[in-house]
């Protein structure tokens, strides 16, 4: 093995990462807790929890429920607002040699633009991920994620508000995700992140009540991997901007599948809960996979999947 030769440096448009592994929004908070487990500089990037203009209290509990090879969540974007992020969370993250991507969420295009303007001036914020696909808040799914022109409007507004790299995050709960990816590309997005969670529900047959106070929640974890992988493959063939693959990644093998399908980088979400060391183990595992095959860079495998026969 010549793992020493492998260089995991990854370029997502104008954004350069030390490796293609990021942690997904909402599954890593603002890094503090995981910093007690490992050095965050091992990560390609950290995507922080969805951040809004004003603080949000979130949904009442119960907010999560485990399902077959997955989990439902309806957190409702509980967060302390962008000011608190800049004052209290960002300084901590800046100590690490990694990229910080802020996942932004608003009710209207104007709110997204406002967030982008505020964050545009922040040193240490490397990119913005535009969360137009959160299924657990009133204005999430229906308004932006289900309508390509609304998607365009939001991305366009953010594009005009900042020159930082922007990555709209797409919902899988649509008939054809490529249409949305193309709208983002046209609006000037640097890349697209996919997928967010599938909308699902669960019922307690003993109490005959929904398992989540919010009735429905977002389904994540290994159960959604086949759907995510299909959408990443389709999207990578439909747009020229890079695709960041997300959905059910727990091991390096999972991550390599996404790279082969055409993802330029990946995000680990629920995998962080399954195995708290998942993200750094995936970085090492990708390196090992490339080294064993005498390859030097993730770009040697990105999109390189072939037909079975």
């Amino acid at each position, binding site marked *: 093995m010549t793992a020493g030769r492998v260089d995991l440096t990854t370029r997502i448009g104008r954004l350069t990462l030390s490796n293609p592994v990021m942690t997904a929004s*909402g*599954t*890593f*908070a603002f890094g*503090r*807790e*995981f*910093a*007690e*487990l*490992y*050095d*965050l500089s091992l990560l390609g990037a950290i995507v922080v*929890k969805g951040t809004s203009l004003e603080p949000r*209290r*979130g949904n*009442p*509990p*119960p*907010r*999560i*429920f*485990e399902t*077959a*090879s*997955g*989990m439902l*969540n309806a*957190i409702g974007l*509980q967060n302390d607002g962008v000011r608190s992020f800049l004052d209290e969370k960002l300084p*901590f993250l800046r*100590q*690490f040699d990694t990229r910080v991507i802020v996942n932004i969420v608003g009710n209207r295009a104007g709110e997204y633009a406002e967030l982008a303007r505020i964050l545009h001036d922040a040193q240490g914020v490397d990119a913005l991920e535009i969360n137009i696909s959160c299924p657990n808040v009133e204005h999430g799914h229906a308004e932006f994620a289900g309508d390509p022109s609304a998607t365009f409007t939001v991305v366009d507004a953010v594009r005009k508000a900042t020159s930082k790299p922007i990555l709209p995050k797409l919902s899988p709960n649509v008939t054809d995700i490529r249409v949305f990816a193309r709208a983002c590309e046209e609006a000037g997005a640097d890349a697209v992140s996919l997928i967010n969670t599938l909308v699902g529900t669960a019922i307690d047959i003993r109490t005959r009540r929904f398992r989540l106070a919010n009735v429905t929640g977002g389904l994540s*974890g*290994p*159960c959604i991997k086949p759907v995510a992988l299909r959408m990443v493959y389709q999207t990578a063939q439909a747009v020229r901007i890079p695709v960041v693959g997300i959905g059910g990644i*727990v091991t390096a093998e999972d991550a390599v599948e996404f790279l082969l399908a055409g993802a330029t980088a990946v995000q680990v979400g*629920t995998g*962080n*809960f*399954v*195995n*708290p*060391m998942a993200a750094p183990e995936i970085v090492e595992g990708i390196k090992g996979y490339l080294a064993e095959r005498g390859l030097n860079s993730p770009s040697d495998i990105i999109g390189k999947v072939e037909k079975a026969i």
Partner: protein
Amino acid sequence: MTQDAAGASKFSRRVAIAGTQHLGGAIHLLRVRFPEIAASALPGQFVEVKASEGSDPLLPRPFSVNQVDAHRQTFAFLYEALGCSTRQMAQKAAGDELLVTGPLGKPYPLEPDVCDEVVFVAGGLGIASFLFAAQTLKERGDPRPVRLLYGARSAESIVLTGEFERLGVRCEVATDDGSLGEKGLVTGLLERYLASDPRNPALYVCGPAPMLKAAAGIAEARGARCFLSLETYMGCGMGVCVGCTIKMKTGDGPDDFEYQRACVDGPVVDAARLIW
């Protein structure tokens, strides 16, 4: 939190099972070698344990640290093999691996200034966290009297009382069917104890939700300090998913509350602040 960027204060890895012990009914004790956790865990803290290699069950489960060996190389936790993870655990033997993360959560406030009498109130598997607490008080040479009020379904589910007695803890037991100790609920033992007008006691309570709620009510009525260890449904166990939220008072108005995370702001909470 003031911890520095590089310093690890939690640990997570696959570790081998050092030994298992069947205590009765479906209750087992499982010991793993994990020196960092054994050395730093405090009573009331827990670990997340993933027993399955695959993705069903997907998430690790929280288990209280039950005891730590004298050299702080291994620690043990107690479990009842009833659900999907715990039944898988029961099929494991020494040498098999588990994925363990910890120590997690806020410990019991056991400092001398909290109270003059330490009272553990356990319902069923709620006993799990108290042995470590009693050991720790003993190790610290804490001179205060320690008492255990312990209720369970039947004699079969009453475990580890010998260990408590060896540590000088005064144990009182109640079972639903009267097969051991008094017939009745642990809240009965608690009522009687508080009726005896103890001197500045603090109650540390762990057990099923209805029992916690009843104990908190009794404590409030009697004006006793009361700390509850909550067994909230958890996602990550370490404060990042915000899925384990509990409603905590921030004032006296109806809207004076915030959602806190049971895993890092708890599992031990002051009963006076919890909104059910």
